[in-house]
């Protein structure tokens, strides 16, 4: 019983990681109709920024998160405005190819700058946790879940309570109609992409606390984000939260499923994904267009 409880806790915490990583991916996909294959690379850039600040300057990883956000915001804005905007109206395959290429370039640059060595961020509190009876809650996992929820709240607020959020929603709904009420399409595109990248940067900032960082470590995050968005559905912040938490739970429970080896964890997670899609093609909370 307590073992199950422990797994549920760990599953939710892992889900928090998925939520934080997938929020920006979901925003960019939902509004711009771009499946950003460089999303994982953005996450890893955030991880390296935090690592540099921690290992060179001794900055606490949590304090480096705003820096991650700012740098990735600027990078995202520039990439969208300068590069991706050129193919934004082209078929999905073009943005696929372009972001695939951007991913390769970023990974290669990271290899040049940081070498393929494994890096990790190890402040004093890493590894410690909160003990509640027989259940242990690692502090870092708890903090990452908290930050994921904070990011979700910020995104919801921006989308629903601000001027630029209204612009982003309008562009997501109808590009032409949005222009005709005076919305600067290219600016909103670039801002949306920049916000997505900034969120990836913050999610990445805490990656190094729990796993080692390498230039190629980003690709799984793109895949996971994809799975989370499909599971939860597009077009709602709450859908990404539901998808992320559920995906985390399934993975941890699958890892410890009785009678099956740990190697089946991913297979189980994606099998659940397929089953959900069979019954709810729009995802758990998504909207059908």
């Amino acid at each position: 019983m307590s073992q199950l409880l422990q797994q549920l806790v760990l599953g939710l915490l892992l889900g928090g990681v998925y939520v934080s990583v997938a929020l920006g991916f979901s925003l960019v996909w939902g509004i711009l109709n771009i499946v950003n294959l460089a999303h994982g690379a953005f996450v890893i850039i955030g991880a390296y920024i935090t690592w540099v600040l921690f290992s060179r300057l001794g900055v606490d990883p949590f304090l480096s998160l705003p820096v991650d956000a700012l740098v990735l915001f600027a990078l995202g804005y520039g990439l969208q405005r300068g590069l991706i905007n050129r193919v934004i109206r082209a078929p999905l395959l073009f943005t696929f190819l372009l972001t695939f290429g951007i991913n390769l370039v970023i990974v290669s640059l990271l290899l040049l700058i940081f070498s393929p060595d494994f890096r990790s961020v190890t402040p004093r509190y890493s590894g410690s946790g909160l003990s509640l009876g027989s259940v242990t809650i690692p502090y870092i996992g708890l903090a990452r879940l908290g930050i994921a929820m904070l990011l979700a709240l910020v995104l919801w607020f921006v989308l629903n309570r601000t001027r630029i959020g209204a612009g982003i929603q309008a562009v997501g709904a109808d590009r032409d109609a949005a222009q005709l009420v005076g919305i600067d399409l290219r600016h909103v595109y670039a801002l949306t992409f920049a916000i997505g990248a900034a969120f990836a940067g913050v999610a990445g900032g805490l990656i190094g606390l729990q796993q080692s960082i390498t230039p190629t470590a980003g690709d799984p995050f793109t895949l996971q984000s994809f799975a989370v968005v499909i599971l939860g559905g597009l077009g709602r912040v709450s859908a990404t939260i539901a998808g992320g938490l559920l995906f985390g739970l399934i993975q941890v429970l699958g890892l410890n499923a009785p009678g099956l080896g740990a190697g089946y964890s991913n297979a189980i997670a994606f099998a659940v994904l397929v089953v959900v899609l069979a019954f709810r093609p729009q995802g758990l909370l998504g909207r059908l267009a």
Partner: protein
Amino acid sequence: MSQLAVRGVSKRFGGVAALTEVTFSVEPGEIFGIIGPNGAGKTTLLNCISGLYDTDAGEIRWEDRSITGLPAHRIARLGIGRTFQIVRPFGSMTVRENAATGALFGQPSGRLQPRQALAYADTVLDLVGLAAKRDYPVRRLTVPDRKRLEVARALAMRPRLLLLDEVMAGLNPVEIEQALDMVRQVNRQGVTMVLIEHVMRVIVGVCTRALVLNFGRPLIEGKPEAVLRDPRVIEAYLGERYARQGGPDASPTQADGEGGGGAGQ
């Protein structure tokens, strides 16, 4: 000085000439009608004026400055509002939020905060008769109400010119009367209008002048009653044989079945 001047505008799509040297001008306070058979280039013309399309040739002047080639959002902020033939509300928003986007981004005088924009949205929803439904999600609106919302969203930009693309299509005669009242009321507030219509009653009922397009070329321009009686117009709508047989007395309104609403008078 004309408020809007379209001079020699042409637009091609591949090998198809959608517009060929279209020229007309609209005076302040006018309600200017654009009519023509399906495929005559009416919507393309509005798309060129509102900046959704780049023109291939010609110039479009608005309040004595050239707006040729400006991006659509800049043209919108210069005071030119636009509605679509097939309504295009922002589906994730309520009626009120939809109207507020116009006020939030499109007003020429500068930035409004979300709260001010919502307040202004209430004003225009009142004007078009949607005040009671302001908190509805847009998918709950009927077709006539969605058309009203299109107009409200454009009006929230405080435009000095409104381009209306077949706001009457698909409405029944009672709804058309209501929509006509709305058009007149908006016009009385000093908004110049250019409207595309298939419903001839609308053209005759409200327009000061009308331009007929045929295969992307201007055919004739003048008083609506005179334009509709012109043999060239009848021919364009009904074919050459009918024009010869029917002569100038056969009004095209009798047989205008396009666009789902060509009611006779």
